[in-house]
């Protein structure tokens, strides 16, 4: 047995030392953790900006910042959270770390390309955030960079746009890597329908990353061309069409929501059967619904533009398609709930996150249908209702799944257990804070409070106070969770190979895994969620 097969990937020696052994490592696990640490930094930056916005909204009029600062802050919050945190979040962190192990491979298909993806991500992030330190300040257009204002603002648009363009390459390369890895490197015996659901969602995500990201790349370059050369793609004053910009932007950015949510659904599909100690209900249906979401998700972008002035034909086509895309999402929810039916459930922290995911995701999904219907959309468009819906899906859906995933795979990644009581307390406080923060925004939106306004009339005051207090509770929960995880990574009790009794391949390797994951590539003979026999703990 060589040394690579006995020591964990953290202890394995490479030609580089110290930090260089990480930032030049082609090991998929180290790259996954590089993404994790980078994304956490950006996430907390985004959280601080979000909390600052809520603080401003504590009272009508100017509270802690002026209107221009508020505009810049919500733009930066959006750019950071969308492009730097949520889009790469689950695929780049847990996809990188877990995908090869879950399919019985030693690494991804292109390890160097994988490292390049992380470097491109870091470079893109630095460029996108450099506008913070330039005279003129960060952009104030919102993360959507809508035309024609995006060509007229005097703030630093170009760094944010060029940064987002560069970040796209990182996403595309990760997508290519995952698709090739899944096609070519599955363990012997692992047929497509014996593959766990998390890799399946990464596969669907990979296709969206490859096919949709170039569209936003070209669109962002068109903005650069428009600003520098005044070409006239989108600016009506130059003969352009601003709605064309919205089409191009959302042709990517709506599927991007599925880049975010599909791996989240994959993580939930791993957590639920493990803690239900039961095979997942309707495995093939979940796979098909994953691919259906990835496919139909391409054709619903127009529901972001119902009040923009599209033709009536386009309006009802997009509305119909939006209702259709809700079907496969709902199928998944039924499957998860079906899995829990008559199960002997282990009440552990990852399960709490998965269960609360179902709760908040349902609220997010159903409020999405209210927005997908043309008549209600006219009333709710660009109100706080949209912000609440979006955060219930992206922070509630993806965020809760991320938290579930990190608590689920923590023992595997760090080889230690965390303090379960503290983790559950963190979850409860976070969950209460989340609902207190975002539920009032539904009421505010229905009552007519517009989004992206730093001021409001007196009658919106009460729900805004509740919402701001919710942001403080949420941050308290977050601090407890992060403290517990960081402390446990160093001082937690040693974890066994399979502390939760999972059946997928990552639970058959050491915690933390060795450099090459497996001493011998396993031969897969059973489905991924076969709970008929106990495996070794």
């Amino acid at each position: 047995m060589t040394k690579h097969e006995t020591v964990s990937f953290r202890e394995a020696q490479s030609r580089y030392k110290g930090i260089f052994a990480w930032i030049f490592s082609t090991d998929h696990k180290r790259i996954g953790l590089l993404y994790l640490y980078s994304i956490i930094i950006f996430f907390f930056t985004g959280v601080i900006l979000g909390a600052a916005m809520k603080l401003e909204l504590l009272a009508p009029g100017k509270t802690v910042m002026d209107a221009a600062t508020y505009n810049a802050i919500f733009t930066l919050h959006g750019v950071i959270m969308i492009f730097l945190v949520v889009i790469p979040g689950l695929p780049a962190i847990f996809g990188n770390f877990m995908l090869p192990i879950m399919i019985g491979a030693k690494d991804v298909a292109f390890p160097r390309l994988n490292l390049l993806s992380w470097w491109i991500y870091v470079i893109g992030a630095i460029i996108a955030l450099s506008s913070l330190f330039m005279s003129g300040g960060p952009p104030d257009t919102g993360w959507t960079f809508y035309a024609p204002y995006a060509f007229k603002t005097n703030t630093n648009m170009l760094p944010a746009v060029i940064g987002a363009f560069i970040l796209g390459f990182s996403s595309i390369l990760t997508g290519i890597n995952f698709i090739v890895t899944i096609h070519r490197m599955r363990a012997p015996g692992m047929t497509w329908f014996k593959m766990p659901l998390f890799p399946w969602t990464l596969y669907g995500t990979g296709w969206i990353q490859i096919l949709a990201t170039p569209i936003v790349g070209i669109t962002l370059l068109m903005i650069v061309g428009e600003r520098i050369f005044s070409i006239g793609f989108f600016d009506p004053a130059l003969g352009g069409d601003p709605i064309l910009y919205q089409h191009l932007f959302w042709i990517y950015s709506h599927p991007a929501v599925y880049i975010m949510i599909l791996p989240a659904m994959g993580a939930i599909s791993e957590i639920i059967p493990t803690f239900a100690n039961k095979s997942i209900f309707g495995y093939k249906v979940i796979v098909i619904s994953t691919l259906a979401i990835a496919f139909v998700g391409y054709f619903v972008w127009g529901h972001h533009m119902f009040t923009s002035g599209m033709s009536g034909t386009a309006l009802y086509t997009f509305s119909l398609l939006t209702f259709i895309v809700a079907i496969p999402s709902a199928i998944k929810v039924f499957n998860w709930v079906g899995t829990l039916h008559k199960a002997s459930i282990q009440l552990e922290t990852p399960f709490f996150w998965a269960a609360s995911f179902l709760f908040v995701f349902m609220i997010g999904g159903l409020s999405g249908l209210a927005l997908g219907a043309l008549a209600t959309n006219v009333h709710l468009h660009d109100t706080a209702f949209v912000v609440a819906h979006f955060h219930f899906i992206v922070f509630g859906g993806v965020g809760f799944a991320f938290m579930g995933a990190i608590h689920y795979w923590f023992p595997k990644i760090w080889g230690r257990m965390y303090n379960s009581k503290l983790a559950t307390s963190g979850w409860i406080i976070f969950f209460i804070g989340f609902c207190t923060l975002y539920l009032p925004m539904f009421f505010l939106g229905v009552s007519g409070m517009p989004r992206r306004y730093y001021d409001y009339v007196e009658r919106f005051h009460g729900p805004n106070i509740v919402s701001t207090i919710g942001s403080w509770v949420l941050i308290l929960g977050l601090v407890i969770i992060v403290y517990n995880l960081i402390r446990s990574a160093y001082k937690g009790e040693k974890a066994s190979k399979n502390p939760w009794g999972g059946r997928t391949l990552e639970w058959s390797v050491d915690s933390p895994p060795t450099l090459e994951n497996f001493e011998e590539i396993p031969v897969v003979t059973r489905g991924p969620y076969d709970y008929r026999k106990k495996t070794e703990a």
Partner: protein
Amino acid sequence: MDKQDNNHIIPYKLYLTVLAGLITMTIVSVGVTKIDLGNLSVFVAILLASSKSALVLVFFMHLKFDNTLLKILVTSVFILVALVLFITFLDYNYR
């Protein structure tokens, strides 16, 4: 590795025919801009561009000799892009 060893010898005549087709379609795509085709002008331009891409993919990039899965994947991408464009034009053509 077997598939990589499968070298396909394509006669120069076929390559030249494809090249001639590409040049002809380029000339047609420039020429067609002189005619006012109304709503069809974008459709014709995209059809010509897609046909040229298809020729390059099939012959120059050897998709013709690749396995069925790859052919299905590439065709699906064309269908996807066509559907996206079709839906976009539900807005532009009916405004």
